């Protein structure tokens, strides 16, 4: 039974490309009116997951309901409820900004007498008024990004999907966009689902965050809850003999992870434990090159659940892609 306040609900959702499962058995409930973040490295399946929800890809298994509509049975109902800004360009590069916005208003049946007003608002919001009549092919990457996002907001959808909204934006623009997203959420009660690689963005914006890795949701909760699940602070060490540290069973260490020439120890009250660690190093004659104490961040949460930092996960995902790329059929590559 669908719970009342899930505006988006997926059950065992699967999306395959040939034999490769890009989304694996995802079950998720997104509440009405929340800002929900999907955090994960390249190739985690974020875009694929959103595309299934937005009806541009069809699922191979499981079910997904968006605003009470089944994505496979009534895609038109879903499309009427959503707005989406894509990770890659979806503007018509031969048209000007104004023409692109006009087209969007028409597709979403915005009344004729409001269209001009809407277009000027959107251009103002994107800070692109001077470039309104310039063709998109002459736009910079950041300008396109901005236009793409304001376009998705124009028809004030009930549910807004933003795929990597701030990728490639300069810091001020990114801040301004965060404010806008919060404002839309608070004033219009818009449900917003966004994907990101940036820990700080998820932390700053999202009511709840799902960490997604290799097509699976590995953790879900508020940023506070997720940080708590790491259960403690993290001491990061770089030593000449990390193995020795990993082997040593400190009583107070809850979790030890070796990765990328560093060792991470999860402990409570790290301030007090750090001396014991240094003493152990001294006794065992292991030189410490670097020692670091951190209160948990989402980065650590990611590490905790996947055993990798987000950077490492991206590198291995790229490697995996390269393999698949070589093996894939030519028509896949042409896309």
């Amino acid at each position, binding site marked *: 039974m669908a719970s009342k306040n899930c505006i988006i609900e997926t059950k065992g959702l699967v999306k395959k490309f040939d034999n490769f499962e890009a989304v694996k058995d995802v079950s998720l409930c997104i509440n009405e009116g929340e800002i929900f973040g999907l955090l994960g490295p390249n190739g985690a399946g974020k875009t694929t997951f959103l595309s299934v929800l937005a009806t541009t890809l069809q699922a191979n298994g499981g079910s997904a309901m968006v605003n009470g509509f089944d994505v496979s049975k009534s895609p038109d109902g879903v*499309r009427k409820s959503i707005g989406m800004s894509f990770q890659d360009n979806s503007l018509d590069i031969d048209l000007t900004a104004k023409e692109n916005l006009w087209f969007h208003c028409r*597709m979403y049946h915005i009344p004729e007498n409001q269209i001009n007003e809407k277009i000027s608002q959107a251009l103002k919001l994107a800070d692109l008024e001077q470039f309104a009549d310039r*063709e998109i092919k002459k736009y910079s990457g950041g300008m396109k990004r901005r236009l793409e996002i304001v376009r998705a907001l124009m028809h004030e959808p009930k549910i807004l999907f933003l795929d990597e909204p701030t990728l490639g934006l300069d810091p001020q623009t990114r801040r301004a966009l965060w404010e806008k997203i919060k404002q839309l959420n608070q004033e219009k009660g818009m449900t917003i689902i966004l994907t990101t690689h940036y820990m700080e963005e998820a932390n700053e914006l999202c009511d709840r965050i799902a960490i997604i890795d290799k097509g699976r949701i590995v953790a879900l909760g508020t940023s506070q809850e997720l940080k708590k699940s790491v259960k403690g602070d993290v001491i990061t060490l770089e030593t000449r003999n990390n193995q020795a540290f990993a082997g040593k069973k400190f009583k107070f260490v809850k979790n030890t992870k070796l990765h990328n020439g560093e060792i991470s120890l999860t402990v409570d009250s790290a301030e007090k434990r750090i001396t014991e660690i240094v003493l152990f190093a001294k006794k065992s004659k292991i030189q410490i090159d670097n020692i670091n104490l951190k209160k948990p961040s989402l980065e650590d949460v990611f590490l905790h659940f996947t055993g990798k930092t987000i950077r490492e996960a991206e590198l291995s995902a790229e490697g995996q892609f390269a393999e698949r790329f070589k093996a894939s059929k030519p028509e896949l590559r*042409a896309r």
Partner: protein
Amino acid sequence: MWNDVFTLAYREVLILTKIKIRILGLIFNALIWLVAMGFGLSPLLSISGVSYFAFLVPGMIGINLLFPSFFGASTLITDRQFGFLKEMLVAPIPRTTLVLGKALGLSFYATVSAAMVLAFSIILGFQINHWWTIPALIGIALLASLGLTCFGLALAIKIKDTQSFQLLGNFIVFPFFLLSGAFFPLDQAPWFIRYFSYINPITYAIDAMRQITLGIGHTPLILDLGVLFGFFIITLIVAAKLFDKSE
């Protein structure tokens, strides 16, 4: 729905008119065909009592319809490559409307190209007996073009790169072009040419245009129009179905 069709069609036309060289290309194309074929051959021939030039005009209109209609559909592939297709696909617009809108825009352009051939022919001495034959010719051109663009779109949905589309398109379009009764009357042609011509929708468009301008033809006008309309509806449905499945 008609509003959406209009918006989609308008976008197609807007893009096509932005590329100025295309318009020049259209005019040049129309002239070359008429002058080379019409004046080159007409002193040598006369068919069913009309000059070869007059015989050729409806054929030239049909041919100048075929190319922009069919190859215009490759813009669907570029829409996909540059990402704009995604914007159309998440919009709350049925796939049939998307196909119809695109087809109408491309057909409008193709029909303008056909109308240009007509205009040049009249300047060069093609006789029009009644004023209404002009809108009638344009109507037939538009109807034929809608079917051809939908046919092209159905292929463009399946074929995901422009080069393959052009290549395959040439294989398809050239027989359509040569075996359509544009250049010679079909009743004197060998049976295999005749049979192929009768499955070629362009044949019916040219036949209809010859009947209303010259009063000569092979099949009844009503059959011509019926075939063109049927071809349009079938290709529209097929393209929309394929579209629904593939995206």
